């Protein structure tokens, strides 16, 4: 009864293997010595296929934004590999790197700080062409910018306006237009709708959906809102303290979460339907996520987990398949639980 994967035969665009990024914690002013490391991303692997949306969910501090930066090569990973269409993205330099960079674009969370307030909208969207002159559109930059504005649902006549003249949702559209300018294959969306009101959020999500279909884009959609991620994603990865706790098709994860953390996360999401009050099993986790600089031994979730045993303390579980479960889960006692999900 396992659901079918619609992208089973699609081309793999991005392949991430055992990616690691640790940020050193240093002490001392003149003689700095390392006293530890924040394990922001620790051994993360996944594939992204053409036309697919991979959702990454997790709470603050779980490393999801660091993952986005690594995929953009804004941060250099400590270990692991990123392959973009078979090319080693971490090894390329110079001209080749510039060429690959065009293909992976990012859209940020805060549409208020990610647009330069002193640049007109036309200049903001045309800036990618300045950085990549070889990608200059044949019809002329200004015409292309107008076209992009139209694609994202803004009035092309507003090309000379400045960011402050637009609302939050419109600004996010400007960010999307800038991301689209170089015809990328992959767009990384780091909390793209978190700062928007519900009614505007729906507009932007619909736009992202349309653009994906029109241009065959692959998305990595990073968010903390599980409902939003379910809506837009084909597959979902759940992150906890720098590691993937669970990875699989959205239907598998949302209707039968196998990792205790995913179960707790799903049960904590309020469902906008008062008749479901008391109908769902609510797992209220104790405590806060532990300090990522000093994660617990063995399984990172064990300090908050109700299933934890000595095995969890001694041995870190691998992200693998378990019998009878369609998705990958990193838990010694992975077992699907349907009661946390309202249906």
């Amino acid at each position, binding site marked *: 009864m396992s659901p079918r994967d619609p992208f089973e035969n699609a081309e793999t665009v991005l392949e991430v293997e055992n990616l690691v990024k640790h940020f050193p914690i240093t002490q001392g002013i003149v003689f700095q010595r390392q006293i530890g490391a924040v394990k922001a991303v620790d051994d993360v692997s996944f594939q992204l296929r053409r036309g697919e949306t991979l959702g990454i969910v997790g709470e603050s501090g779980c490393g999801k934004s660091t993952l986005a930066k690594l995929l953009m090569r804004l941060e250099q990973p400590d270990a692991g590999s990123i392959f973009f269409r078979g090319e080693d993205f971490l090894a390329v330099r110079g001209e080749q790197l510039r060429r690959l960079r065009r293909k992976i674009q990012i859209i940020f969370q805060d549409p208020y700080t990610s647009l330069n307030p002193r640049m007109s909208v036309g200049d903001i969207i045309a800036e990618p062409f300045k950085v990549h002159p070889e990608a200059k559109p044949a019809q002329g930059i200004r015409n292309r910018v107008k076209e992009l504005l139209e694609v994202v649902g803004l009035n092309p006549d507003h090309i000379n306006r400045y960011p402050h003249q637009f609302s939050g949702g419109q600004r996010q559209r400007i960010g999307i237009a800038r991301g689209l300018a170089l015809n990328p294959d992959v767009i990384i969306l780091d909390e793209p709708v978190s700062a928007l009101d*519900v*009614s505007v959020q*729906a*507009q932007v999500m619909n736009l992202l959906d349309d653009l994906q279909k029109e241009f065959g884009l692959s998305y990595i959609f990073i968010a903390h809102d599980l409902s939003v991620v379910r*809506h837009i994603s084909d597959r979902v990865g759940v992150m906890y303290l720098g590691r993937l706790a669970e990875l699989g098709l959205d*239907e598998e994860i949302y209707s039968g979460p196998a990792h205790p953390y995913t179960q*707790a996360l799903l*049960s904590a999401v309020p469902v*906008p339907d008062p008749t479901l009050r008391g109908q769902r099993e609510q797992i*209220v986790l104790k405590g806060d996520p532990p300090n990522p600089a000093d994660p617990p031994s063995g399984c990172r979730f064990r300090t908050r987990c109700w299933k934890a045993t000595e095995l969890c303390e001694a041995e870190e579980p691998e992200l693998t398949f378990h019998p009878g479960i369609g998705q990958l889960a990193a838990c010694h006692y992975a077992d699907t639980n349907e009661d946390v999900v309202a249906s």
Partner: protein
Amino acid sequence: MTADIPNDVVDDAPLLEVRDLQVEFRTKAGVAQAINGLNFTLHSGETLAILGESGSGKSVTAQTIMGILDMPPGHIAGGEIRYRGEDLLQMPEEQRRKLRGMDISMIFQDALSSLNPVLPVGWQIAEMFRVHLGFNRKDARARAVEMMQKVGIPAAEKRVWDFPHQFSGGMRQRIMIAMAISLDPDVLIADEPTTALDVTVQAQVMSLLQELQMESRMGLILITHDLGVVADVADKIAVMYSGRVMESADVYTIYARTAHPYTKGLLDSIPRIDAEGEKLKAIPGLPPSLTALPPGCPFSPRCEFATELCREERPELREIAPGHRSACHHAEKIHAMSEEAQNEPA
């Protein structure tokens, strides 16, 4: 004509009654009408959710009730706020200050910027007892530790001297709650209390608030934009848009049989965790500027049901079923539509 939300939950006299409240901000760009004729009542033990998007006037409502609105530029243009029958707006400042904290208390969204960063949290909680009840330092601190234990802060005795930055977001919000309920207020206003928190922590904080409310039977005004949280905890809901209540009813009625196109639009536009994603029905356009509200219904420019009448005449909030009020000329039509959708087999 004042219309308030009739109350089906508790039958005693209302704790708090807001009547025809009007608040404006006088700015250089013109007068922004933040609240235009707001009405609601709150009874003890009841949770009223004020639901709205940014700019709908929900936080201004909270600040006006608390008496912490910046004036100027804020200006209360009319109406009354009755607490146990007495109008807060007519009260001398001295008397209001006594009520604040003792009878009406508030929790803010951002605990980090609401707590004083240079004072230990225990000192800040103890301040409530020292200032309002005249406790000496020692007794006040003992009570502060007690309050911290009550809101579930582990090792409270040790942490009473810690500073706000040494706590996590969820713990800081618990400290805010401890301060707010320390003097056992009758009304607690929570302005987006969980918006800045992660889902698992949000669940902890909301269940703490519910427990505390159950225990002390205080009236809770929950101000939020999150339709999910509201569905879980509220008894009744007032949906705000452009500074007025668009619809009000008990929570079950709002979600199942809405009679306002704005509420319907909001409910249609949220992605559901328990349902596979189809295309979302977004509400087109943007909320109107508060300095230039349209003459008719403020929602009419974005409303798919809007007619000539809506653009010309502002609809009053009127009762369309017992306990269910809607400010829409076509309320009956929308109501019938949602009624029909309910009866349809899923």
